[in-house]
């Protein structure tokens, strides 16, 4: 097996990794209209990670969003609590908005999380899908792309080099700077967050960075094109796509039947999208989510196993990451989903994707 893939903590011989991510949204339950406190929500997320760890799930990540109806703005702090509360699961951001952060501070935080967790930390760096945080944190949205590229490069440089010499446009220069502490294995996996568009995937390929691709719904075949474009872009810059891991992330909900899964999840997605995005999720689109060729993983455990295997065949990806908790889903439902993942879905997808 190639070394670079292993450097990113991926061992394809073990089969596809299964992860869970949360945006840290803090929305009312649309059925009861009640919203738990931010304190409860943060503890819920920590408990959610603990359950995922106990179920043998590979990966858990928490996002950074600075708008209303979110609770994990300080996602690195939440992740450090998760690092302390868990044993084996890999922990990451999803994503860290590197554009509006100082890469030095981000690296210090995540290297520390890596030490607390004894080598389990990763960073997924993104550029924000919403732009309110540019005002909040004192950046100009017109520098959107330049900020991301410069800071993403610096973050990776800090990861690779113990003594950093660097100068750029958006941060004071670094002269023989030692960014400490160093993570347990010398470096940590740094992924590039992509929102599902080809243009963004191509840029991740040019950078030769592992890609964390989030998607809503639609045919899986459409995202195959995006992943192919990423690999082709990487190849064009001299990187070997076989050494670059790909993760996909999207809506997931398992229940006894696909009808039950749709029924359980729809109000949360629809109301959650309305509040955070200004438009609901059309029922017609959501109903298509149970189709075996739709990229949303909604259905019975057996249907989801088949979907993930189909996607794996199409994408050749190394990690799938499920978003289950969006829109005030009650905790007992999250528990039930983790139970189904741990007992039925995870063993099956590992069995069929592990290389013997």
């Amino acid at each position, binding site marked *: 097996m190639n070394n670079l893939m292993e450097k990113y903590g991926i061992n394809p011989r073990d089969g596809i990794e299964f992860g869970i991510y949360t945006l840290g949204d803090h929305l009312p339950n649309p059925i009861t209209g009640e919203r738990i406190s931010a304190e409860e929500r943060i503890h819920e997320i920590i408990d959610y990670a603990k359950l995922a760890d106990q179920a043998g799930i590979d990966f858990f990540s928490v996002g950074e969003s600075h708008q209303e109806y979110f609770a994990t703005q300080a996602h690195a702090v939440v992740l450090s609590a998760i690092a302390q509360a868990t044993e084996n699961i890999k922990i990451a951001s999803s994503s860290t908005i590197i554009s509006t952060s100082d890469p030095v501070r981000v690296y210090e935080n995540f290297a520390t999380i890596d030490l607390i967790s004894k080598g389990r930390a990763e960073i997924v760096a993104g550029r924000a899908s*919403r732009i*309110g945080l540019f005002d909040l944190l004192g950046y100009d949205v017109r520098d959107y792309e330049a900020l991301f590229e410069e800071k993403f490069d610096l973050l990776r440089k800090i990861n690779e080099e113990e003594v950093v010499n660097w100068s750029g446009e958006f941060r004071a220069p670094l002269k023989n700077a030692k960014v400490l502490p160093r993570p347990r294995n010398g470096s940590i996996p740094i992924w590039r967050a992509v929102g599902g568009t080809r243009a963004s995937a191509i840029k991740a390929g040019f950078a030769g960075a592992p890609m964390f691709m989030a998607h809503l719904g639609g045919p899986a075949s459409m995202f195959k094109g995006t992943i192919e474009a990423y690999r082709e872009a990487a190849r064009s810059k001299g990187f070997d796509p076989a050494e670059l891991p790909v993760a996909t992330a999207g809506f997931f909900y398992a229940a006894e039947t696909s*009808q039950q899964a749709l*029924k359980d999840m*729809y109000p949360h997605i629809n109301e959650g999208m309305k509040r955070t995005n*200004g438009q609901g999720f059309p029922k*017609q689109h959501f109903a298509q989510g149970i189709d075996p060729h739709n990229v949303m993983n909604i259905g019975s455990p057996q249907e989801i196993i088949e979907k993930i295997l189909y996607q794996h065949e199409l994408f050749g990806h190394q990690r799938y990451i499920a978003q289950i908790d969006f829109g005030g889903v009650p905790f007992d439902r999250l528990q039930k989903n983790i139970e189904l993942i741990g007992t039925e879905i995870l063993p099956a997808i590992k069995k069929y994707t592990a290389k013997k």
Partner: protein
Amino acid sequence: MKIVGLSGSKVGSKTRTAMNYTVKSLAEKYPDTEVTVIDLAEYDVQFSDGRNYMEYEGDTGFVTQTIMEADAIIIGTPIFQASIPATLKNIFDLLPVDAFRDKVVSMLVTAGSAKHYLIAEQQLKPILAYMKAQMVQTYVFIEEEDFYRKEIINDDVFFRIERLVEDTVVLTETFTKIREEKEAQYDF
């Protein structure tokens, strides 16, 4: 049913005059509808900077949110330089790509010349289709000579406005009913 009458220009008076007749007709024929007139001449709307429509404040936020909450939108537009005015295009740019999904949009067009008749067909309708509007296909086209001192003086225009109002409401009711029936078929 929430209807927005959007008068799309800061220049001149013909579009607003035509919109006033339209809203009056709407109020008379369908008193149960809730109608809001947004005349862009009366609002200080900023240019789109790419943010989500909910994140705009002041007049811009009011305009985007009122449009997004509407069931139907009657767009009134003049034709400038053989196109729609920038003020109107900016409204589209402020909204999400599928902003008009599950909404009916109808149009009335004022112009200085009959030569502009197909502008709405060729430039406005493709935008509305892209943004997923259900359109009232026939629009009302009103020329300079139909106005006199901020009044419409051509009876035929009244008839056409009346039909536009009817078609807008009837289509909105129809699509709402179709959608409700369709959604009821899903048992979730």
